[in-house]
C-alpha cells in the first residue's frame, strides 16, 4: 500500500512536471485525485490492510494528496490560469475594442513635417501678425505704390485709418511680411522659418481665400545662391523623397534679386512629362536673393550681408507630395468629417 502510494505520487509528479497547459493539468488532477481517480481507487483497498498499519497509510495518503495538489497549483501558476481557461472562447476575427482616435488636420501634419526638416538644418520657427501694416506686407518689401498686388481685388484691406508711416492695414498676402520684422530683431545671422495663415482675395477650385505659407529667410555674411540651392535641395529630398529633384529658374519678384521659380520633378511621370506637369516639372513656388532695399528697410547693411528667402504654399507642397488629387482645394477647409477622418 505504502509502496503503491509512493509510486502513485511519483507518477503524478512526473506527469505534472511535463504538463504544458492548464488543460493537461486538469486531466492529471482528474486522473489521480478525481472521484474515480487512482488515489480514490487505492484508498478503497484500505480496509484490506492490517489495522495497525491503517493510520500510517491514511497519513501517507493525505500527504500524497497534499503534495500532488500543491504541485498542481504551483504548475498551474506557471502555465497560466487553468480553471477559467476552458471558459475562454475567443473569436479572433471579431473586431477589437479600439481606444478612441481622432485626426489632426492635413495642414497641421504638413506644417509639422516641414518644421522638422528645417529645424534639422538650424532654422528657428517664428510667428508674426496675420493682420499687418502695409509697410511690412508691401512697402518694405520693395513693392511700388502701383503694384498689382496692392489692388483691392488682390489683397484684403482692413477698414481702419491708415497709419501715417506704416500705411493701411491688410491681411497678410504672404509670409514674406515677416522678413523685415525678423530683421528688426537685430539678431544676426538670421535663419528664420515663418509658417502662417495667408489671405488673398480669390476663391476657386485651386484657390482658397485663406491658405498657408512657409517662409525661409537666411541672412548672414557671404550667403549666396549656392546656399539657397543647398537648402532647397535638402528640403525637397527630405520632404518628397530621394528620387525627386529640384531646379531653379529665372523669375521675377519685387523683394528678391535675382528671383527664382522653384520646380520639382513630377512625381507621377518622374520627369518624363505628363498631363499633370509641365514637361516633367511642377512649380513649387518662389525664392530669391533678398533685395538690397529689403535689407536696408530691415536695418541691415547690404554691403556686408546678403541673404536668401523662399515662400511656398503648405497646401501646394502637401498636394504635390501625397498625390491626393483634391479637385477643389477649399475642401480642406470645408471640414466635412468624412474628409478629415481619411488622414
Amino acid at each position: 500500500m505504502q509502496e503503491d502510494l509512493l509510486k502513485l505520487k511519483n507518477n503524478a509528479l512526473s506527469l505534472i512536471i511535463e504538463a504544458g497547459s492548464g488543460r493537461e493539468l486538469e486531466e492529471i488532477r482528474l486522473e489521480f485525485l478525481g472521484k474515480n481517480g487512482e488515489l480514490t481507487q487505492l484508498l478503497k483497498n484500505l480496509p484490506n490492510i492490517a489495522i495497525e498499519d491503517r493510520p500510517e497509510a491514511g497519513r501517507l495518503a493525505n500527504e500524497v494528496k497534499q503534495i500532488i495538489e500543491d504541485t498542481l497549483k504551483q504548475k498551474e501558476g506557471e502555465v497560466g490560469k487553468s480553471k477559467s481557461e476552458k471558459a475562454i472562447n475567443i473569436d479572433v476575427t471579431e473586431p477589437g475594442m479600439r481606444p478612441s482616435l481622432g485626426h489632426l488636420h492635413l495642414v497641421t501634419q504638413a506644417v509639422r513635417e516641414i518644421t522638422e526638416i528645417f529645424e534639422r538644418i538650424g532654422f528657428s520657427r517664428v510667428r508674426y501678425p496675420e493682420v499687418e501694416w502695409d509697410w511690412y506686407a508691401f512697402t518694405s518689401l520693395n513693392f511700388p505704390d502701383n503694384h498689382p498686388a496692392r489692388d483691392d481685388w488682390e489683397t484684403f484691406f482692413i477698414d481702419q485709418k491708415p497709419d501715417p508711416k506704416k500705411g493701411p492695414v491688410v491681411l497678410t498676402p504672404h509670409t514674406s511680411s515677416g522678413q523685415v520684422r525678423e530683421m528688426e530683431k537685430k539678431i544676426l545671422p538670421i535663419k528664420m522659418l515663418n509658417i502662417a495663415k495667408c489671405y488673398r482675395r480669390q476663391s476657386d477650385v485651386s484657390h482658397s481665400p485663406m491658405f498657408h505659407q512657409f517662409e525661409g529667410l537666411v541672412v548672414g555674411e557671404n550667403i549666396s545662391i549656392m546656399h539657397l540651392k543647398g537648402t532647397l535641395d535638402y528640403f525637397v529630398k527630405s520632404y518628397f523623397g530621394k528620387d525627386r529633384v529640384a531646379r531653379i529658374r529665372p523669375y521675377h519678384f519685387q523683394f528678391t534679386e535675382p528671383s527664382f521659380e522653384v520646380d520639382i520633378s513630377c512625381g507621377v511621370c518622374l520627369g518624363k512629362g505628363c498631363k499633370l506637369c509641365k514637361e516633367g516639372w511642377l512649380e513649387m513656388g518662389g525664392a530669391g536673393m533678398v533685395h538690397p532695399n529689403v535689407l536696408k528697410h530691415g536695418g541691415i547693411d547690404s554691403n556686408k550681408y546678403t541673404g536668401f528667402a523662399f515662400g511656398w504654399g503648405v497646401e501646394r507642397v502637401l498636394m504635390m507630395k501625397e498625390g491626393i488629387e483634391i479637385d477643389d482645394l477649399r475642401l480642406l477647409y470645408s471640414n466635412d468629417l468624412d474628409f478629415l477622418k481619411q488622414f
Partner: protein
Amino acid sequence: MNIKILDSWLREFVTTKATPKQIAEKLSLASVSVERIEQRGTDFVYDIEVTTNRPDLMSLVGLARETTAVLTENGIHATFIPPKLSQPKTANTVEITIKNDPKLVNRVLAVVMEVSVKDSPKEIKERLESTDIRSLNNLIDVTNYVMRVIGHPTHVFDYDRLDTKTLTIRESKKGEEITTLDKKTYKLPGGDIVAVNDKGHIVDLLAVMGLENSVVTNDTKHILFFIDNCDPNRIRKTSMNLAIRSEAAVINEKAIDPQLAHDGLLYGIELFEKIADGKVISHITDIYPNKVKTKPITVSEEKIKSVIGVPIPLHKAKDMLEDLGFTVEKQTDKLTVTPPSFRASDMEIPEDIIEEIARIYGYHNIPNVIPPITSGVINHTHNEFFWEDRVKDAMKYWGYNEVYTYPMVSENLYEGPLADAVAIQNPLSEDMVYMRRTLVPSLLQVIHKNKNADKIKIFEIANIYEKRHNNLPDERLIFAGVIKKPKNSFYEIKGLIEQLLNDLGINNLEFKQLERGGDGASIFIGKEYLGDIEILDRETINFELEFSVILQHVTAKKIYKPMSKYPSLIEDLAMLAPASTSTGELMDEIKKQSDLIREVSLLDKYEETRTFHVVYQSYQKNLTSEDVTPIREKILNVLKEKFNARLKE
C-alpha cells in the same frame, strides 16, 4: 502671361541646329519657362510663360535674342538674325495731325496708307493661329503680326471713318461712353487715355481696345497705322476697371520700350506693302516726348562671387551680357554695364546685372551647399509650438478631430458689437466680412454641417482678433472645442481640461459659475481668467480657452518628491449632505484637516450621498487606525459644522 510661338517662325530670327526640345530645356533653365511643346504637323509650338518684368520677351525678336545667348553659353552654336528694317518712301497726299499729351503717352507714331482689304496669305494665317490669335483680315492681321514679331501692340484705324484732320489725345472724363469694336458699350471711369476727332467724338481707347466707330471694315480703302506707347499705370487701371483684358492691354500695362514702337512701325509698313497692296500716303508722325533713359551700372567681380557663390571670370560675364544686348566696358576688377532700351525699366542695381550673369551661366552649374550658419535666435525646446503640438496630440489620442475654419466670418457668426469688429473693407462675400473674436461659432457651424453624425468631437487652435485704437488688432491664439453626443456630460469636458492642463504642468485650476450667465463654468488658473465651458443643450457642450494664458503657466519642469517608505491607509467616507453643497468645497475642507491626508477624491455621487476616497500616508511611520481615527473625527465634526453633513449609516 503666356505666349505661344511656332518653332519655324522663331527660326526666322535665330539660326541654330538645336532641336526644339533642346531649345525648350535651355530656355526654361536660363530664361523663360517653356511649359509645353506641342507637335503641329512637322512643326512645333512652344507655350512659354513670360514674367511681368520682361515684356520684351513677348515677342519673337526678344525670344530669339535670348535663345541665342542661352544656346551659346551651353555650347550650342546659334546666331541671332534681327529683322531688317528700312525707311519707307513717304508722301504728303493726306495730312493728319496728332496732338499728344506727354503726361499720358510717351511716344506716338502714325502714318496713313492706301490699302486693299482681303484675306492674309496662308503662312501668316497659320502663324497667327498657332499663337492663339484669330486671323480676321489682312489689315488686322498685320497689327497682330507686328505685335508678335516686334513686341509692341499696334493699331489700325479706318482713316476715312475717322473723318478728321486732327487726332487729339486726352484724359477721359468720368461717365463718357464708348462702344468697343466688339460692339460692347462702356461708361468710362475717368482718367483713361482716349483719342478724339475734330467733332469731339471718342474714336479710340488707347492701348486697350479699338472702337466700333473707327475700326476697319471690309470697305476700308485708307488706314491710319497707329502705335502708341502709353503710361502703363493708366492702362492697367482702365483695363481692370472695364474688365477688358485684351492682349494689347496686358502688354501695354507692363511698360514696354518706346524704341520698339518705331521698329513696329517700319516692320508694319513693310508688311502692309507686302500683303495689303499698301502705299504710304502721308508723312510719318513720330512724337516722342518721354525718351527712355538708360544708366550705366557698375558691378565688381567680388560682388558677383558673393551673390552667386562661385567666381565668374569678367571676360565671360562680358560676353554673356553682350549677347543679351547690353553694352559692357571691362575694367580690371569690375564691369560697367549699360542696359539696352528694352531692359531700361528692369535694370537698376548691381544685383540686376548679376542675375543676368548667373542665369546665363546656368543655375544648375552652381553647387548645392547648406548654409554653414545657425540662427542667432535659439528657440527653447519647449517653445509655444512645442506646447501647441502637445495639446493637439493629446486631443487626437482622446478621439478629437482637428478642424481649420476660416477666420473671416459673417455678421451672423460674429460675437460682440460690430462697431468693435476688425472688418474687411473689400470682402469676397457676405460670409467673410469680419475677423472673428471667438472660435466657437465657427465650430458650431462645422457641427451643423456634419449633422448626420450622432457623435462629434472637434477642436481648433487659431487666432482671434480684437480691435485696438490706432494699432494692429490684438491677435491671440485660442483653443476651442465642441462635443456633441447623446447624454453629454459637463464633467467629461471639465475632466478633459483638467487632465490636459495637468499634462502641461498646470494644477491650480479653479472652476466657478459661468461669469456671463448660462450653464457652464468659468475657468481660472489661480486668479487669471482662462476661459469657459458652456453647455448649449443636452447634447452640445463647448469650451474656449486662451492659449496665451496656458502658455504663461505651462512647465515641463519635473520636481522629484521622495516616496514614503510606509504604506498608505485608505478610507471611504460616504457623506450625506444637502444637494446644494459644493463638492469641491467639501473636498477642500477634508484635505485641510491633516498633513497626513495625501489625497481626496470623489468616488461616487448618488442623490444626497457623496462618497469620498481618502488616502492617508506618513513619511515617518506605519499608520494605524489609532492614528487615523482622530483625523476622521475631526473631518466629520468640521463637515457637520460647516455643511451640515453627516456620515451615512
